[in-house]
């Protein structure tokens, strides 16, 4: 596997060893160990504890590993996930430049503390809120570690729903805006052009293929997904 490819980003709960093992063998270029969306609050401590082992399980299969962290609990999430072998972090609901700078600082300290090359950990910002999108340029400029931008689950976080045309309300605008800002900052725009009836990052393999085709046409270079059967269509289209 070409280790630099980042066509498909499969998100799995860091707390589920089964899900992690399956994701590691899914063919995804990147496995994202989630500490935010897919983990219940009560299970967060356990998920953090399992993070390092999960990372090793994924790396053993050759995929890159990212951890999705909660900017509200960034210290705990970063301490749990930033170990040698981690490729980067996804910051969910990124919306504050100050918070991105704070995260950058913690990453720098952990890299030193844990014997990792300085600046090794990259950042993907998930601009899922209206504030994050409104201030996208400033947020994405806040750290040199930022490598990519995505709308993540903006449709759910902002409660954007399908129009009669099948477009998700407001998404064509948000996608084009994100692509322009990402290219202006020389970072990678990630995403796919989901339409009704697909929801969030959940869709059938066929609908994922179509979403990826439209996404590639609008400028995206890879996409996040939640199901193993979405990996193959993403790898095919974003090749």
């Amino acid at each position, binding site marked *: 596997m070409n280790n630099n490819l980042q066509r498909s980003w499969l998100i799995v709960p860091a707390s589920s060893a089964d899900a992690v093992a399956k994701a590691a063998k899914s063919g995804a270029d990147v496995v994202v160990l989630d500490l935010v969306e897919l983990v*219940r609050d009560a299970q967060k401590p356990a998920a953090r504890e399992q993070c390092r082992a999960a990372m090793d399980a994924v790396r053993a299969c050759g995929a890159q590993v990212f951890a999705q962290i909660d900017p509200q609990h960034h210290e705990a999430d970063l301490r749990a996930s930033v170990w040698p072998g981690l490729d980067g972090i996804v910051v969910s609901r990124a919306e504050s430049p100050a918070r991105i700078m704070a995260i950058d600082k913690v990453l720098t300290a952990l890299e030193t503390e844990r014997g990792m090359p300085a600046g090794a950990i990259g950042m993907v910002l998930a601009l899922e809120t209206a504030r994050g*999108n409104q201030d996208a340029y400033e947020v994405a400029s806040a750290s040199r570690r930022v490598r990519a931008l995505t709308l993540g689950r903006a449709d759910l976080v902002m*409660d954007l729903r*399908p129009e009669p*045309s099948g477009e998700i*309300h*407001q998404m064509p*605008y948000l996608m084009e805006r994100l692509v322009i800002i990402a290219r202006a900052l020389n970072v990678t725009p990630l995403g796919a052009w989901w339409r009704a009836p697909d929801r969030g990052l959940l869709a059938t393999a066929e609908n994922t293929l179509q979403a990826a085709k439209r996404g590639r046409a609008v400028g995206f270079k890879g996409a996040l997904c939640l199901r193993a059967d979405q990996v193959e269509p993403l790898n095919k289209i974003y090749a």
Partner: protein
Amino acid sequence: MAQQKVRRSGLTMPIVTPRFVDQAWRRGCDFVTLDLEDSVPQNRKDYARTLVKESIPKVTRAGTEAFVRINHEHLQADTAAAVWPGLSRIKYPKTETADEVRALDALITRYERERGIPSGTIEIDPGIETAVGVTNVYDIAAASPRIKEFGATNGGYDMSRDLGVEMFVPYDQFVYLRGEANLAARALGLGVRAAPFIANTTGSVSDGNRALRLAEAARACGLRVGGGGLNPAVVESHNIGYTPSGADVRDAHWVLEQFERLQATDAPWLEVEGRVIDRYEAERARGTLQWAESCAARNREKAEAVAKVRAQLEQQQAQQ
């Protein structure tokens, strides 16, 4: 966001046409916009200003909110004429800068004080109708705490003219304009005025069926701010279209029941009958139920007010 006011339907009417203003209470609107602007000829602008104070109670007695649309170029005179007890909002057309909004805010603040209206009562509704307005859209929306709802719908005549684009075309030429205003409203936590794109190649403004389809599509997108009607034929369509249906309410209860089941497990979501159930769906369902309640309360409030007006009229007739 504060509890959103129920503003599903609204008619804009020339304040100088008594048969419209006198009958406004019969229309069933959530709000009426008394117009000093485009529907009033230049030579009647002075006269129009003298009518605002007496027109407001004619509208509000039916439980309908009274708004006034002022002329951009007559900010001082129109605001002085419009700020009276009972007024809910001033619509400020062709807003182009935040400074303009702040100037209007200062004028309203002054007249609220002078005329015994609690400070901050009257809202401002900036209309984005020009290219310059679009470039300053976020600053305009953020310029005053009197702005509670914000957005741009589908261009409108003024915007189309300013941009040099055609209005009644079968494709969506206002993606960017709508997106900018919509995003600003959401980022500031304001009520979002927006509409999904549905082609209107006829230019009709009095088609009740089309109005219903549009309002229902907007409701399906979670949008709640309606109005903008010019013809009484669309009012009931807007009231119905923006109100959750019985099926919506039943579905919301079903979603919340499924969510209860999910809560008993460790899973982040459940798939039931081909649908995903998670905290986002639960949040949406709770929002639907709350909105249904708000709409029902607003309907009762209006019905009671209208019944009172009718009783008064009957009494007057009996006395004659």
